[in-house]
Every structure is written in C-alpha cells, then in structure tokens.
C-alpha cells in the first residue's frame, strides 16, 4: 500500500470513529437512552473524548521520529481538529444542557469555579490552534506558526487539570492521564529546555 493510501485509510478511520461515536452519543442522549442523566453522560463523553484525541495527536510526532513514519504527520491535524470539535461540543453542551442558556449562571460558573476557568482557557487555546490550522494561514505565519502551536502543551495540561479538578473523589483516572501526559511531554524535553 502506498503512503498516500495509508493516509487516506487512516483519515477515513479517524472520521468514522470520531463522528460515529459522537453522533451515536448525541442521538441516544436526545432520546433519553443514555442512562438516567444524559447531560452528565454527554459532558463526560465529549470532555474525555477531546482529551483522548488531543493526546493521540501528540503521539504522532514521537512515532514519526522513532519509526520514520513521516506519512503519519499527515493525519495529525485531523486529530487536533477533532479534539477541538469535541471540546466545542463539550462547552456548547455545558451551556445548552447543563446551564440551560442561563447566561448569568454561565459567566458566574466560569469566573467562580476555577476548574471551569481552567477548562475554558484550554478551550480558547485550542480554538486559536484550530483557526490557524489552515495550510494557507500556516504558510503565511511562517515561523511564528510553530511557536503558536507549541501552546498545545499548555492546552492539554490545562485540560487534564480541569478533569482532575472536576472529579469528586476517585482520582485514579485523572492520574493515569497525568502519567500519559508526562510521558508524551518527556519526548519533547529538548523543546522545553532550549527555551
């Protein structure tokens, strides 16, 4: 199989997987078939989904370096964009279904609850990265593009903190995410040291 075919196939899998799961989740939630509290289920699914996709996008470049799979780079943007899409659904669902369009409560929660503030900062960073992900913009931005996109490390760290902070008592899961994050960041330690 040529690399072009591999890229095409992997992208198809990413599309089917990401769109399929989220569509099914919302479909079931709308029909009250997602447990007793579909709002909580949707928020949890989209939040964890965004983190999973973002972590997956951060696996790409270490893989490329280690195994010389340069064609893999071609799917990284798609993973990042889906991570943003899940995060967007997460924020919109929070506003629409949890807060239920109560604007004052929405802002109150964002300002007064540090874990939500942290989550929103992470989301805004992801939004900046998503907007500048177009090839045209990337070319125009030149070297500053990479600089901007290094903020992804902060975005994912804040997202994991947001998860950790939102949990009531069982911290195992967020801690596992922290470990994965540290491992993924350790592959890039040169990047951080050089600064």
């Amino acid at each position, binding site marked *: 199989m040529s690399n072009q075919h591999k890229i095409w196939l992997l992208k198809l899998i990413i599309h089917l997987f990401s769109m399929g799961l989220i569509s099914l989740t919302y479909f079931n939630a709308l029909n009250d078939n*997602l*447990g007793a509290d579909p709002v909580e289920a*949707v928020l949890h699914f989209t939040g964890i989904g965004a983190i999973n996709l973002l972590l997956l996008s951060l696996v790409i470049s270490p893989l490329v370096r280690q195994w010389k799979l340069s064609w893999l780079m071609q799917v990284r943007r798609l993973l990042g964009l889906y991570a943003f899409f899940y995060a967007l659904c997460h924020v919109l*669902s929070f506003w629409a279904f949890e807060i239920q369009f109560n604007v004052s*409560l929405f802002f109150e929660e964002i300002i*007064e609850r540090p874990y939500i503030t942290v989550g929103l900062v992470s989301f805004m960073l992801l939004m900046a990265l998503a907007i500048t992900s177009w090839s045209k913009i990337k070319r125009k931005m030149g070297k500053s593009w990479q600089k901007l996109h290094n903020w992804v490390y902060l975005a994912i760290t804040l997202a994991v903190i947001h998860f950790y902070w939102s949990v009531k008592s069982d911290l195992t899961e967020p801690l596992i995410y922290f470990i994965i994050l540290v491992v993924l960041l350790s592959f890039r330690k040169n990047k951080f040291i050089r600064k």
Partner: protein
Amino acid sequence: MKPVKYSKYNESENQVTDEKIYRDRRQVLKSLGFVGASSILAPYAHGIDWFSSNKKTFETSPLKYQAASSIADTLTPEAKVISHNNFYEFGTAKNDPAENAQSFKVDPWTLEISGECEKPITLNYDDLFTTFDLQERIYRFRCVEAWSMVIPWIGFQLSELLKKVQPTSRAKYVAFETLFDPQQMPGQKSRRIGGGIDYPYVEGLRIDEAQNPLTLLSVGLYGKTLPPQNGAPIRLVVPWKYGFKSIKSIVKIKLVEKMPPTTWNILAPNEYGFYANVNPQVDHPRWSQASERRITTGGLLARNRVATLPFNGYGEQVAHLYKSMDLRKFY
C-alpha cells in the same frame, strides 16, 4: 399506630403528576433495557448489562404499605431511580452500583440499635418490614452534585424506632454505619474502585434531626423492597439534607453523646459539613448550589433546571431546628 397525615410530609408542588410512569411497569422494564444497552456508549462503562440473561438481577418483592394520598410532583421514573446511584461501595460511576450490586445478599441481615438507650434492640431481616407499619413518602432527593429526583420511598419514621429503644438523656446524636463486607462490596476491597474512601461509610444526625417526622428509614421504593444499588435492605432518607447523608445498607445505629464522624466530612471537610442541609445560598467550593437539574423523563433537551429551595423545600418542617445557627459556618 395513629395514621399519619401525608399531606404534611409529601411533595406538594404544582407540577403535573406523571402517573403513567408510576403505574406502567412494562414501560419501565423496557426503558431499563435501553439504559442497559446504551450504556455501552457511556465512557468507561464496563461489562454492562446486568439486565441481560447471563447476570441475575436482584429480586425485589412487593410490600404492604399505606400509599401516599396524592402524587403532586413529577416522579423520577423507576428505571432512573435504580440506575443512577452514588454508592461507592459498588464503584464510583453512576451506573456501577446497578451493575455490581445485583448479587448482594440482604437476607439474613442484622441491624443493631445500641448506645445511649434503655432498650437496645437488634432487628433481623424480617423485623425490618414487620416491626413498624410501613408507609409511602414521596420526597424530593437533592444530591450535593446539583441533580435531584422525586422518589416514592416506603418505610417508617426513624422517630418510631428511637421511641422503641428509649434514648437516655445523654443521647445527643445518632450515628449510622453501612455494612462492611469487602467480599460483597468491591469498592471496600479496592481503594481504586471505592473512590479512596475509608470504609465502612458512616453518617450521623443530631438527635432532634433524627426525631423529626420527615426522617425516614426506608425499606422500599416504587412499591417494592429496595434494590441493592439503592441501599437494600434498609437505608436512611433525610429529604432536607444532601443525598450523602442518606446512608445506605445500614447495620448499626448508635445513640451517642458526641458528634459522630461522617464519611464525606472526613474526606473533604472544606466541601462537606456535618449538617449538609440543602442550601442555595451556600455554594459547594467547586460549583453553585443555587439551582439543580431535576431528573425525570426527557433526554438531553429536557429543560430540567429548577431553583434549589432552602432545606430542599422542607423549611416549614425543619427550619426551627437551626434557628440560632449560622448555616454558612455549619454547612
């Protein structure tokens, strides 16, 4: 025993009665199947479907009780009441208890009432259902996580039990304890499954709170004995306090002189107090308590956010208990 005036204790908001949900068992079972199947989608839903054939569902049995005279509020469907539970002894996800508790043994059971009282007693499984006349109470149930349900409980007033054992003058508080049985409760065996809580789960009330007519020892819901995920065979229901006060699967009730330790207060004292009265003015450090999402029917689009009421709407019956107290300090 004198018949109780239900109107005083039962739900009385001007909302539409959802009789259909209450009566139509087949519909409930059907939707339960859906819950089981769709929880595959829920993130981290493990081995789901206690509803399916390879795993036995816990068998509840019908109870004899005096029904609540009227249903004034929209009830939370039974399928949701028994599938959305915080019972960390069986896992921390909301659907874990329904999945992991189906083989829980409730008979034989021993509930020991002791401490500062003249006539300590021990109730066995059958005693739980026969010692006192059972009655139905429809209460709002407000979780500290800002969701709520409306549940038709069946049980008897804790005050009746207390009357029977005759508390001494030194009995200032009542301490409760959940069964400790790691063989049956995976959360007690593994800190990971049990959310890092030191078991057994303990709770407590001030004696006057325990004696309030609203405070119920529940042995059933929706006309039948409790399923294990809801705290079979006997649990506390204190409707004006956050749900975590309503301790499940109780084996010990002790009358004591000093304020007893309580599980969530030990775990996070800045977030969960001893009193834990529902109070829209005192936020949880991490979220607002001013409103709640009422879980009834309807999916994602249900407009179910309602204002949270002081003492969960039971202020008339209980506010006097806290007359001179600063409820911000004693949260």
